[in-house]
């Protein structure tokens, strides 16, 4: 399952390993977009707990379809 998590404020790229492989994209409006695979609900709650513990303002959590990831993987294999 792929999730997108929106946080208020920009995170530096060094936070990538803290969020276990999610990609970090900084948007012009001051929002950080975390995107990546989350293996299950327990892992998702674990991520949210990290957000909680850092005091990061959480704006949204969105489940993204798995199709694009598979296509992306196919592309990488080529």
């Amino acid at each position, binding site marked *: 399952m792929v999730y997108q998590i929106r946080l208020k*404020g*920009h995170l530096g790229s060094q*936070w990538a*390993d*803290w969020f276990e492989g999610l990609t970090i994209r900084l948007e012009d409006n001051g929002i*950080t977009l975390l995107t990546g695979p989350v293996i299950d609900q327990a892992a998702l709650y674990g991520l949210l707990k990290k957000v*909680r*513990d*850092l*005091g990061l303002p959480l704006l949204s959590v969105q489940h993204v379809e798995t199709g694009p990831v598979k296509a992306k993987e196919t592309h990488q294999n080529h």
Partner: protein
Amino acid sequence: MSTPILATKLYIPPSRLDIVRRPRLIERLNEGRKLTLISAPAGFGKTTLLSSWVNQKDESREAGMKDEVKKFQPSVFSLQPSQVAWLSLDKGDNDHARFLAYLVAALQTIAPTIGAGVLASLQAPQPPPVEAILTTLLNEIAASHDPFLLILDDYHVIEAQPVDQALTFLLAHLPPQMHLVIATREDPHLPLARLRARSQLTELRAADLRFTPAEAAEFLNRVMSLNLSTEEIAALDARTEGWIAGLQLAALSMQGQPDAAGFIQSFTGSHHFVLDYLVEEVLHRQPESVQMFLLRTSILDRLCGPLCDAVLGKDEGGRMKDEKETNFGSSALSLQPSSFILEYLERANLFIVPLDNERRWYRYHHLFADLLRQRLRQNDAASHPGGDIEGGIVAEYHIRASQWYEDNGLELEAFHHAVAAHDIERTERLIEGKGMPLHFRGAMAPVLRWLESLPAAVLDARPSLWVTYASALMMSGHPSDVESKLQAAEAALRAQQAQRNAQDDDKTRDLIGQIAAIRALAAAAQNDVKTSITLSHRALEYLHPDNLAVRTVTTLTLGVAYEFQGDRAAARQAYNDVISIGQASGNFMLTIAAASSLGQIQEAENQLYLAAKTYQRILQMVGDPAQWTASVAHFGLARIFYEWNDLEAAERHGQLHIQLAPQIECDTSVSCEVLLARLKLAQGDVGGAGAMLAQAEQSARQHNFANRITEVITAQVLMLLHQGDVASAAHLAEKHSLPLSRARVYLAQGNPAAALAVLEPWRRQVEAKSWQDECLKAMVLQAVALHAHGQENKAAQLVGDALALAEPGGFIRLFVDEGSPMAELLTRLKDKGGRMNEYIHKLLTAFGQQEKMQPSSFRLQPLIEPLSQRELEILQLIAQGLSNSEISERLFLALDTVKGHNRRIFGKLQVQRRTEAVAKARSLNILPRSN
């Protein structure tokens, strides 16, 4: 030994004098509702608000602040520092036994005697259910009337359902004088909606806790002395949204900064995550040595100077022990011991919080600690690209911390850091402990969590870990999972033996012994006595002589199994062994358990002086105040003092047992109530005895203590006979087939032959079983029956035998409770034996005392001489209303003969008139009631 309580977790954080006043929030806290919930993300000042609230009274002593403070006096209940119990929670409190232990310890900071029994019961191998513990605790709280607060800080670390359930139970039964306060980053799993609906909840949330612009201004300009303009403050407040940690970091960044305006412009113009941006600013303004100190010590939950020195590799003087650690920096601070640096950090207001008044222990603000740990991990990853995380420098820091904790006797903390270091060998060694494994001391949950986290391959490589796994599961009450772990251990051992050909090394044999010991316990739990005995012997054969902890448990298991089997001699030997091993290894709980069982065996063998000595020894071990662990000993002493005719001491110990027993849902409280009922009967208090028996019967039925019903019935029969209600007593005795009770009823009916017919086979039965105590009771009652039956020589012989058996134990009530027929028998024997003469004199003295306590209206004895057949015929005719003349005509007897029979009937029934004779005969069941 128990896991020591860390006093720093109970310490109320001090309030800083230079904080921002928040009267609108203090007013909310003063509402005094059942639960106050402060739920907000990290850095919103939850702990600071609470500490300033509870420390208000102290602040009022500041002369210059008096007028201001008076405005904010509590409006609902008067808050005193001594009436606040504080508990700072951490992940370790997810073990509900540890949570309860700390809960009690926190409460004891305001009421030192509260919950003492609870702490002891938590150390038991199988603690009582949580509700029973909390009920005891709540009853003790309700007994005192002073209002107080219990504050639980950082409740968000609690994930364990048993702890949430315990707290829900606590809230549901909270006494009115107790108020619960919870500070958390996440709403707890408590019935908040219900509490809201009932107006029993005060909530402070992030929106409440944010600094208002006015509060932000006060903080930045008064507290931090920054002299910012209104516009600058507004910009900072908007950027941080009143987030207190953010404002504090911003203020620290600007202190000493020549260009505050430039900083503000840069900060407010950035989209960077506030915390990330500001921590970077604050860290970079510190000397390099301080930065390194902060990063490396961030692995610690608690900091003190010596521990930090250990983690950093410094000696006491602040010098590096290892020349390789050259990157610590060259500033003046790098040469100072860690305690100095901690003081510096506190003065610099760098997110460090003291945990005691001596400024010895500190902790980082949790938010700051999380950030530091994150940066430490990043640095470690950078310096070891592609390296294994387990081999990093962070692991080395944890090992140093673990070593320091171990050296200072804090084994659980040492264990946690060993786990964090992924050092399996160190972790296992710390679990094993020095003679007493961690999971034998109430630390099952963290040990199990660690074992569950290990892959099977690691466990297979160390069969002892599988055994520890099984042992911890057994201790924590999950017996169904135990056998699979034991089989995994055996499989791993076989694999190892196949590789090494190491058949008989000591460690392997000890593990085999441990496996057998755990299986013996499991068999005992299933009441499979034979298997338990066999396995216990196997365990003792294989266990290493130095493995005292497991040998003690196994020997106790063996004793219980033998006792269950009826082999008292073998059980006694086992219990004595447990006592000597247990004392040598410091196993307090098992020593008491074995001594309690030993005392009961000694009683059962009529060795009352030995038994009393055993029980007194338990009381000495337990000490004051009385604890549930001593409740069995108190009941044992109550029985013995009753038997010794020391009714006052018997009552005192009996009452102590009844107070303590509910803490462990123990069925012996029913037996003790029965004993106290008999004691009241002996004191002539028939009403009191009846009330106590009714209570005992209710207890037995409510808790389904079926095995105790017979004890209640036996005492009820005695009481009914005491009241002269022979018919009801007969019904009860017959219904429940109680031999001694049936014999007593027959005696009361004037039918000693029937009593003897019951007693002789019963006595042979208990003799065959070697039940010395029951045998002695049967002999005494049989002697009374023989006496009533006119067989004086046999009666005297049997009493003599009973006296010989009873004298070594000092039995008194065994004889006195049988009443005047026994007194007559003893009087006849009085001048026959030398040593026995003194004993008989003592007994007769007790009979004399007994007479004074018995109201004469209740002095009822079975007929000394039964009515003859002719006397029964005449009595029946009297009951039918016939006159003496009519009886004379009906039976063809002379009138004088009839009158002679009447006199003998009246004499035997101890009455003066015909109507009295009829009534007495009916109450003794000599005449059918229908007549």
